[in-house]
């Protein structure tokens, strides 16, 4: 069914350096969310804080009534069983074969027999297309395969919440497209809450129901996909359309001179909003909304050419 994650006033710093402050958002149950942000804005730190690997300085993260920012170690280990996490490089256990890696959570947490475990593991391996590679060690396979194996392991305990740490980093465009389709299909199938941390614009534009943007030590915006894609907010607009003109510079923020130099520069028009990826079996996900629904509801006119079936995937440059 998926579980709601309610984050309130979350603040984290390392030593004196603030990573982000006062982040408040609610990740709705069963929906796909993407957390975006320029490199080095603490997206991965945010993800690790959500699973309690890092303690925030202030604020709360409430999952099923439990505040995991301020709970005991024991409760934390319990609540983590709700999670499946795909780490950046898969984080496979190097000394075990892929089969043992995927079977690991089942062997540790359930009393299932080896034949039951075998059925579940093979089902998940098939889901991510790794049949035939069960006996390989993580060191012997490519990065993309490790990622898919990591996904199989994250899914093996039927999690309520699945977190993806840059699922598309280091993958070629074709594999990224397949992975994105897989994410949408999975969501349709298991109805869990998905949070994807990435800086791949294509993923962010086409996969999620909601988008969040971390920028300059705070959460710049969080809301439905169409809201952010049609937003005129300079930071959101610049980032989601991969433009150079805007407040984001090479090193985090542009200084006053650079901004002054850009004054009066014509901003390119907002590119059309692409259609959301649909489950490959054609049956709509529970949390899916018809294209243009949000825009219609809020009286926003989407950029021309939006929601066109044959639109090219490229972002406006």
């Amino acid at each position: 069914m998926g579980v709601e994650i309610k984050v309130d006033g979350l603040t984290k710093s390392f030593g004196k350096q603030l990573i982000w402050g006062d982040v408040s958002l609610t990740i709705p149950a069963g929906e796909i969310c993407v957390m975006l942000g320029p490199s080095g804005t603490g997206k991965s730190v945010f993800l690790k804080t959500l699973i309690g690997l890092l303690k925030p300085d202030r604020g709360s993260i409430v999952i099923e009534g439990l505040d995991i920012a301020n709970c005991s170690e024991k409760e934390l280990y319990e609540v983590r069983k709700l999670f499946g996490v795909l780490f950046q490089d898969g984080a496979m256990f190097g000394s075990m074969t892929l089969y043992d890696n995927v079977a690991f959570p089942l062997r540790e947490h359930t009393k299932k027999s080896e034949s039951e475990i075998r059925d579940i593991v093979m089902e998940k391996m098939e889901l991510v297309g790794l049949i035939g590679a069960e006996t390989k060690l993580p060191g012997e396979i490519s990065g993309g395969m490790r990622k898919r194996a990591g996904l199989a392991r994250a899914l093996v305990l039927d999690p309520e919440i699945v977190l993806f740490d840059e699922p598309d980093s280091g993958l070629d465009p074709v594999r990224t497209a397949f992975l994105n389709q897989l994410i949408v299909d999975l969501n349709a199938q298991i109805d869990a809450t998905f949070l994807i941390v990435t800086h791949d614009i294509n993923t962010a534009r086409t996969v999620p129901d909601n988008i969040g943007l971390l920028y300059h030590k705070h959460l710049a915006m969080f809301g439905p996909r169409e809201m952010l894609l049609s937003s005129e907010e300079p930071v959101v607009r610049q980032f989601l359309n991969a433009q150079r003109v805007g407040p984001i510079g090479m090193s985090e923020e542009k200084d006053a001179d650079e901004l002054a130099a850009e004054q009066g520069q014509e901003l390119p028009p907002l590119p059309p909003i692409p259609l959301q990826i649909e489950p490959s079996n054609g049956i709509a996900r529970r949390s899916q909304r018809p294209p243009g629904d949000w825009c219609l509801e809020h009286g926003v006119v989407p950029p021309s050419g939006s929601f066109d079936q044959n639109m090219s995937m490229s972002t406006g440059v």
Partner: protein
Amino acid sequence: MSSLTSAKVLAPIGTAGKLFAFGLDVARGLFKRPFQLREFLQQAWFIASVTIVPTALVAIPFGAVIALQVGGLIKQFGAQSFTGSAAVLAVVREAGPIATSLLIAGAGGSAIAADLGARKIREELDAMMVLGIDPIQRLVVPRVLATMLVAVFLNGLVSVVGVAGGYFFNVVLQDGTPGAYLASFTALAQLPDLWQGMAKALVFGLIAAIVACYKGMNAAGGPKGVGDAVNEAVVITFMLLFVVNFVMSAIYFQLVPPKTG
């Protein structure tokens, strides 16, 4: 500025405190079930396999050097018949635990720190925690117990090989008599010597494993961080072990009166 200096000065105390806290976590993990028997056996075998041969090779010259040094000195006193007991005392009481600790820290500890450090930077430890498994209970406790077990066995190995090496050098090279070497065994040495050697080895194994695990699990900053962690683990273990060895020897002499031959 002053707060910055004081922070720098106090940093080692903080680190010592964290290491101690980690030790307490391990102690707590010891009683958590299920006990990881498989991991324990694998690790014990692994640590034994990387330490046995080097330990034996270190123990032979160690025993020989003691026999040479003590033998030469005792000859000047005209008390050759005590060479055997001197060798036993030196090897069993001090050389055994020290050689064991050097090998445990240098071969076993560095391997543990490198292994856990690599897992840490590959996010395997995070993945494990996210899967609801405590890495301290799952990985650290079996390693600590395995290191302690192997340390005790290695101590026995060093004692036997060291005494045998001493025998060889004393009898074959220094023209001592086998009878005198063996007979003087019991003149100064006593059973508690053996116990304290084993107790030392046990404590050394504990310290070496805890420091190695702590450093490995706190490795940061990519592959270089793992190298640093291994390096620091070995250096810190050496320093700690020599201090602890001194303290334990001092306590031993207070508790067990030396035998008067």
